């Protein structure tokens, strides 16, 4: 399931729903991303997330489908927030449930690595000086994605 929303989300509730939906699975792995209070050495007071309505949802859907094809996964949930956020606000939640913990760990990390380099979201941050700037893409995120293309399972 994919959700792109301005509202915050309830991590505990989402994990519980995926867990209870499947009595035959034992493992639920989740990733929560929060806005950091610092970036590139500057204190951050605000972060705005822009997205590409229509394409963003489709890109996330494609990433989740790829993960489900590649590993033995019961379900995947992706929630990504847009709009104005403050330090320590939650940005993103990815949950993968599976009968096997190794599969759930891989699928969840795979989704995050692909989301970071393929899903159309852009961050603009405001510093304590009042100046704002677009966050630069990190090539470590590209590297993280490419890792999955070179190794099996």
């Amino acid at each position, binding site marked *: 399931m994919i959700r792109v929303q301005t509202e915050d989300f309830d991590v505990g509730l989402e994990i519980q729903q995926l867990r209870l939906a499947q009595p035959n699975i034992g493992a639920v792995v989740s990733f929560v991303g929060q806005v950091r209070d610092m970036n590139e050495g500057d204190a951050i007071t605000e972060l705005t997330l822009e997205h590409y309505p229509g394409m963003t949802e489709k890109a996330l859907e494609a990433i989740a489908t790829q993960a489900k094809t590649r590993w033995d996964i019961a379900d995947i949930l992706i929630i990504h927030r847009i709009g104005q956020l403050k330090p320590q606000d939650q*940005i993103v939640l990815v949950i993968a449930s599976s009968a096997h913990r190794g599969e759930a760990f891989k699928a969840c990390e795979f989704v995050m690595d692909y989301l970071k*380099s393929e899903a*159309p979201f*852009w961050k603009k941050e405001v510093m304590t000086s009042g100046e704002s700037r677009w966050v630069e893409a990190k090539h470590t995120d590209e590297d993280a994605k490419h890792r999955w293309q070179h190794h099996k399972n």
Partner: protein
Amino acid sequence: MHMNIKLFYFARLKETLKYSTEELALPTEISTILQLKAFLAKRGDVWGEMLMSKLKVRAAINHELVDDKATISDGDEVAFFPPVTGG
């Protein structure tokens, strides 16, 4: 025959070009993303800088990421944006 497309710009591109979206009738000689970029670059300084500089610009046709060689069809939704930074 002209192709009619819808164009979208996001993030730093939207901000610098001061365009969020536009509808465009493309001259017949333009059929690829690269040709479209070169065509838009002729609008002037900021356009050339943003679309033809070393700044990485990503393109999508109908919500799919594509490269410079991808061909555009009549009625397509084309988008230009910087490398993504979500998550």
